[in-house]
């Protein structure tokens, strides 16, 4: 399947078997290994990246379905020496131990903060139509699709909250 993907602003041409997931296309065909494979079944969130502004599990999507799409991976959010606000905050708050889930956490949180800005409610929001108060409970609920088996959750939540507060 011939597929054109714009990844972190650069267009890539891919010619891979139709079975190739977006995750495997990045890691095995395009040498973009920042996006991690955990469960490969949409349960852990390690493979989270941003497609056309929305966070998705790249393991549960076929590369050929994304012809023409704009994809942002962890490599596109920041680089050493030029980290994004969230990446900085993860370092500051020690939001990881082994680091394997971190790219997925940061991609997920990046898109999640946009969802909050767009006024999307969550399961724990007191009011479906009111402003979102990004409490720890809100952050935990909104990030429940990203597991951290080292359980760095308190620090991850701190990093996300500080980033959100800094942008207010």
């Amino acid at each position, binding site marked *: 399947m011939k597929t054109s993907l714009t990844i972190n602003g650069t267009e890539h041409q891919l010619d891979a078997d139709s079975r190739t997931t977006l995750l495997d296309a990045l890691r095995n065909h395009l040498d973009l290994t920042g996006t991690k494979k955990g469960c*490969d079944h949409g349960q852990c969130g390690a493979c989270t990246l941003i497609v056309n502004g929305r966070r998705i599990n790249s393991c549960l*999507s076929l590369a050929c*379905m994304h012809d023409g799409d704009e994809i942002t991976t962890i490599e596109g959010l920041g680089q050493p020496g030029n980290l994004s606000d969230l990446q900085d905050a993860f370092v500051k708050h020690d939001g990881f131990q082994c680091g394997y889930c971190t790219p997925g956490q940061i991609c997920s949180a990046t898109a999640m903060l946009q*969802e909050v800005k767009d*006024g*999307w*409610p969550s399961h724990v929001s007191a009011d*479906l139509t009111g402003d979102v108060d990004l409490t720890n409970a809100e952050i935990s609920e909104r990030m429940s699709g990203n597991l951290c088996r080292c359980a760095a959750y308190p620090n991850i939540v701190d990093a996300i909250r500080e980033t959100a507060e800094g942008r207010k």
Partner: protein
Amino acid sequence: MKPFDYIRADSTTHATRAAGQGANFIAGGTNLLDLMKLEVMAPHKLVDINRLDLHQITEVDGGLRIGALVSNSDLAADMTVRKQYPVLSEALLAGASGQLRNKATTGGNLLQRTRCYYFYDTAMPCNKREPGTGCQAMEGATRLHAILGTSDACIASHPSDMAVAMRLLDAVVEIESAGGAVRSVPLSEFYRLPGQTPHIETVLEPSDLIIAVTLPAPAKGAQTYRKVRDRASYAFAMVSVAARVQMDEGTITDAALAFGGIGSQPWRNPAVEKALIGQKPSPELFAKAADILLADAKPQKDNAFKVPLTRRTLIATLKELCGKDAA
């Protein structure tokens, strides 16, 4: 994953024709690709419908017409849904994760497989995966399984939250077949009981494409969705209740109740609602409603807890909607 051909549909006609010739539709793919990786499902051809023009939510006849490709995220965040059909937003937000809701579609959510661990485990017999091979779940781990609408061939539960709210709201499924004919099927008639053919879950024919789901004008009364699960987020319901209750001077003038996690399909029993309408809320009345709902429950060893759990969840939900002083 088994090899398959991939095509992208450029019209609903193109999509239904391909499906009539044996292709499977793929939209969000969050359930289908998961099952294909395990080779529980192995379609020889996928027809990608994501670029069809089925992404709109429009107000029609006082109600709402939701395109089949509207994502679960967009539907939950839609301001009309939040204000007029809050139970639907709540149910959607109680399901899956942020990432999955961004991919999962309205039509696809209805068509996610009714499933259990044994359906996923290809080393086990399963009447749904391989008709006639038997059901290992009956004597196995059944915590997630259904207690209503099951058969001796299958006890899997329908895991959707969205579909429970849709069932409460009297949603109607709009379906296009090969040739272009469009028909409407109420969600109440959309799912089939497992009986001896648990591999057939809906009334859809092979070429049938869901193009929209319509909701009638919002009914009066307070709405809520209450979900009980093993962890606080991103887990299937042990039991869930979608409810709407209208009160007038201390009397229940209208009530609707739908249940998730306990049925082989999104569950609704008109007799439960009939028992409540015209009555004054009381612990006895709520207990009677629970008795009617659970009269035919067939629990297994591991999920017998669902009978008292459903009873308590139903009563708590009714108390909430009837007002704290009511019972």
